[in-house]
């Protein structure tokens, strides 16, 4: 954990020269080249939301809507408070017939709900858990007076643990772990894992799906917006 913390704190920014090359390609309208350059940068810095955002831009400009949605979603998962990333993700999703804010939910409420990323909420949840348990242990070991002193802190920590735990669980329900994006132009969802099964639905490129199971070269996916599921070629989906 210490190594991970150090790595997170001391993460160096992406090398300037390769980034400038990618940016130059993008500015010149060579979007495929820019996408390749951004992908190389991301391989070295996978946790940099801005690079995923830039890659999404390059994919979208080169006409690859599905891959653009994938990159924007990764950027959003890493840094949900970035307004630019949120806007571009919504822009790309609308092209695939979806919206970032689920229907029926007020925009500000969804923005507030997704203000913290799942990994940040996980950290806050565990921080509150550690605090609660240590305070509770100290209260058990201490005298009656120390227990009285710790009581307020303990209740606060426990409330934070509950809050962040529920928030984290709620976010995982909305943005589950096993997700993907359709990258094929007109993907067919079949009723079974094979070409012999009939096509139940077609789905547009860029549509976000939840991966339910795998069978060989096929994935069973559920469309988050429509609530339907089917089997799709694994090559038609890019996992998040």
């Amino acid at each position, binding site marked *: *954990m210490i190594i*991970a*913390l150090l*790595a*997170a*704190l001391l*993460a*160096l*920014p*992406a090398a300037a020269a390769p*980034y400038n090359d990618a*940016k130059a390609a*993008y500015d010149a309208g060579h979007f495929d080249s820019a996408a390749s350059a951004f992908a190389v*940068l991301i391989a070295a*810095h996978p*946790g*940099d*939301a*801005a*690079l995923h*955002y*830039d890659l*999404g*831009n390059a994919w*979208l*400009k080169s006409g690859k809507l599905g891959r653009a949605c994938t990159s924007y979603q990764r950027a959003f998962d890493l*840094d949900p408070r*970035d307004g*630019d*990333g949120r*806007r*571009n993700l919504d*822009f*790309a999703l609308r092209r695939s017939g979806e919206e970032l804010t689920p229907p029926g939910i007020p925009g500000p409420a969804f923005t507030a709900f997704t203000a913290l*990323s799942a*990994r*940040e*909420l*996980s*950290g*806050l*949840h*565990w*921080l509150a*858990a*550690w605090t*609660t*348990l*240590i305070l*509770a*242990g*100290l209260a*058990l*070991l201490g005298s009656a007076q120390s227990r009285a002193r710790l009581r307020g802190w303990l209740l606060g920590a426990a409330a934070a643990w509950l809050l962040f735990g529920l928030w984290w669980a709620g976010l995982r329900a909305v943005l589950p772990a096993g997700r993907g994006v359709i990258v094929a132009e007109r993907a067919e969802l079949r009723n079974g894992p094979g070409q012999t099964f009939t096509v139940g639905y*077609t789905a547009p490129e860029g549509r976000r799906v939840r991966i339910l199971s795998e069978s060989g070269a096929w994935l069973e996916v559920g469309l988050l917006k429509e609530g339907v599921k089917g089997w799709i070629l694994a090559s038609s989906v890019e996992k998040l």
Partner: protein
Amino acid sequence: MKTAALAVCAVLTAAAAAAADLSVSATLDNQRVELGDQLMLSVAISGSGSAAPQPPLIADVEIYESGKSQSVSIINGRVSSSVVHTYVLAPRKAGRFVVPPIEVPGAAPTAPLEFVVEQGSPATQTAAAPSPAPNPGPRPGGSPDVFVTAALEKNRAFVNEQVSFVVRFFTAVPLLGATQYDAPKLTGLLSENLGAEGQGTTMIGGRSYHFSELKSVLFPVQAGRAAIGPAFVTVQLPRGGRMGDDFFDRFFTMAAPETRRLHTDPLTLSVDPLPPGAPDDFSGIVGALSIESSVDRARLKAGEALNLTVIVSGVGNIKSLPEPKRPDLPSVRFFDSESSVKLERRGDKAGGSKTFKTVVVPKVSGPLEIPALTVSYYDPAKRAYARAHSQSIRLSVLPGDPNTALPIVGPGAAPSPGVTEVASDILYLKAPGGRSALGDTLAAFGAPGPWHILPFAFFLLALILDWRRRIAVADPRARRVRHARAAAERRLKQAEAQPDAQRARAVALLGEALTGYFADTFDQPAASLTLKAVALRLQNRETPPAAELARLKSAWEELDLLRYAPGGAGQAEVKRLADEIRALTLAFEKELRS
């Protein structure tokens, strides 16, 4: 160029003015038809292309939308746009009908239109009588002089799928006078004449016939059963069927010819609905289509106009083809289209092309791409929906004259001093490295790992300790017994740690260790405990520890001696006695706990 821009500006300003004068008119292509014929109703909306009329409802008349055409005309600098909606009216019975006034919001309703449907010509009425003339079709063993047949390409089709329909007239004798053909009455079908009239000679039943054929295609308009009534052919035949060989026979035969009215058998066509899963832009065309788009200039200034031509061609009901959906380009103004249809025969199929011409005005400068236009159709051969794409068109738009660009932005949209969104696009790149250290730290801390067991372990340990403390408070005797040897050991160590100057204190601690151990073990006050009482308690056990008792007695007496003669106990003596008491308490601990 400036002049051109001004001209376009003037044109568009005039178009805006024209839009305000909305008018609607309706016309029929015919006021009197026979039962089985169709009429075309055209509803023209001038001034704005956005409003659409509701198709009229007329009892006993089936009405189908046939298409829409749009046009922008410029006469003496005045621009007028119009949209013409076309409907096919197919009366189901004879009588007098009225097309009710057609209303469009913002315009005065049209005047009612009247048309008459007649039962048919006298010849038709005769043919439609309950006992029509027998149809002398080709029968086994029979060889009539004349007969007429009708045939469909197939008996089952999808809605709007074209089906070839052929009427053939056969004659083995010379005909006198003109031949009259009456088309069949169609129910649930639209007809398109292929304009193909073939003829030739064939042998039927050993007899030579000359035949003429008339081909058309039918488009079913709805699922179910479509009916094709009998087609009629009226001919003048030589009386008796044959002309004589000499001049007089031929003369009298021609003078009194026999009129014969022939008819085909009625036919039915099973019409299936199109399968589900139609694309969003599917307009009902069944056949095969292709689409191409082009512009008359690829380089222009913002505010200038260009002509976008879209041609959709192929096989199918081209007449009813709507304009392909325009791309959503907020930076471009599209004007209403003008469409034209060219029908042609493609083998045995009806097809052609429909051309849509649109004036396009870019609002802003920069590279502009008009994306590919699409048209969807159902391909009956592949039994699947398909979509044809045109090529995208790239334009280079230069900055326009700022004095003329503003009015061009849009008639009906007054220039606004505020910010106006011209086009929606993604935001630009972001420099990397702007990561949140706090977020990364939280993420690293929240990552799954065994270290998250630590707070739970600490809490569990605290629970156990608290539980033991609570037990001790609740049962002090058991705690005293349990800690007897630990207390003795603590005193022994204190005794051993005493300096030489404190030998009396060391001996006293040794005595407290020994007596305190047994006082704790037997839960008695140490002050009242004697060697005799301890020995008695130990001897009352089932297996008295005789050896340990002797050692205990010796140690106890030695301590008593030293207690009252402290000057005789050296450091080594204290150490020896401490070890002896330690060994004794350990032995008794085992003995008493067993």
